[in-house]
């Protein structure tokens, strides 16, 4: 397993008014478990934490290292090691059809175009997407597109997988499919989700609340903790 390390990493953003706002308070963590799940309310900072891990967001303070590689200095190397699946598949897919998109991912690994094409089709097959390989990605259903986004990232076999709510648009069956596929992978994995069943399927869980790690421990305890957090709030009253 890789060592994902945050040393006092914090994220502040400047909003439209020019004010600075803390999105993630200084956080120190060492993640070495195989499966780590991240849960928390909308806007709590889950996506921000995940994006730190492959250098899509840079810490405004502190540092983030993956096996000793600093995301700030060795961004390209880090991203080659850490694959990222976005919640919004549209943010992920860049080519007009599924096959082309997977092939684009594979360019770095496979120089021979025919072999690349074969590998791409195999990757799509795995997710039951072979028939849709030549269809415009903008004409796929929401769920089909999300499956495709996962397929494009898994095709390059990164050593660490970071997944930001990868199952939100999926139906019962496809959710099961993705869950069992992920369970069968050897890769280390960090996964943010609102699906608490999926979150339970981990070795360690973090609960993020209002930009800080509010709980860190076993998945069962984390889910219980989060449920309590939700229940404690006065219903219909908004956080913050």
């Amino acid at each position, binding site marked *: 397993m890789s060592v994902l390390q945050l040393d006092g990493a914090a994220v502040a953003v400047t909003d439209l*008014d*020019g004010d600075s706002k803390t999105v993630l308070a200084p956080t120190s963590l060492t993640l070495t478990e195989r499966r780590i799940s991240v849960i928390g309310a909308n806007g709590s900072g889950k996506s921000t934490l995940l994006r730190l891990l492959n250098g899509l967001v840079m810490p405004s303070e502190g540092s983030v290292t993956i096996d000793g590689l600093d995301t700030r200095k060795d*961004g*390209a190397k880090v*991203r080659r090691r850490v694959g990222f699946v976005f919640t919004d598949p*549209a943010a*992920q897919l860049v080519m*007009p059809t599924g096959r082309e998109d997977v092939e*684009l991912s594979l360019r770095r690994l496979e120089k021979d175009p025919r072999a690349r094409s074969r590998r791409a089709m195999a990757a799509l097959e795995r997710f039951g997407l072979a028939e849709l390989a030549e269809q415009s990605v903008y004409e796929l259903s929401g769920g089909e597109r999300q499956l495709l986004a996962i397929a*494009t990232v898994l095709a390059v076999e990164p050593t660490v997988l970071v997944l930001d709510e990868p199952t939100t648009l999926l139906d019962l069956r496809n959710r099961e499919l993705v869950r069992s596929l992920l369970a069968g992978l050897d890769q280390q994995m960090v996964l943010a989700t609102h699906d608490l069943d999926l979150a339970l399927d981990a070795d360690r869980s973090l609960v993020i609340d209002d930009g800080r790690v509010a709980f860190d421990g076993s998945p069962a305890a984390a889910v219980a903790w989060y449920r309590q957090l939700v229940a404690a709030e006065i219903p219909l009253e908004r956080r913050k």
Partner: protein
Amino acid sequence: MTHRSALLGRYVQGNSWLHRAPVWSKLLGIAVFSLVVFLHEGVWLSLGLLILAAAAGLSSGVRSTMLLVPLALLWPVLLLLFGYHWWLQGPLAAAQIVIDIVSVVLTASLITLTTPSQRLLDALVAMARPLRPLGADPERFGLSVGLMIRSVPHLIGLGHQVRDSAKARGLERNPRAVLLPVVVNAVAYAQATGDALAARGLGERDDGSA
């Protein structure tokens, strides 16, 4: 979580003379201002116009950090232009060019900073009304301009988002993975916006059944 730049600024509530001025007068103001900037000669006059623009900005009650947002985004371009024109035409000419850009961008952003988008829309609709006999649809013209202004920051954000997703897959040096997806995503964004308007019954020719 895309980055949203606000080159044109966004409305800031207030009650200054600029906030109260009718929208048409502000549009006329910028038309005249840009004409003067275009016609005048000499760096000192440029500086004078910039001071005028800055004074207008400061008297609008909008915080100076917000007035400076466009500059914060543009300074690399401005520096480049300054260097280039210095080399080509000397420091004074270069200074004039850069100062002119700053004052025009500043005055233009003052319009959006001090006018609620709906009032801007109303004004644009009123401006297009005389063209109705020619087949123009003022309401839809206004909506198009409003959407265009709104889309500029979105497209800049899209540029960042696309770079992010290319980076997330280790494709940082592949130009194919940047310009093309920006355009493709722009089409997708336009379609989503069109659907969103249609879903609310907006943007369609008014058949009088409102």
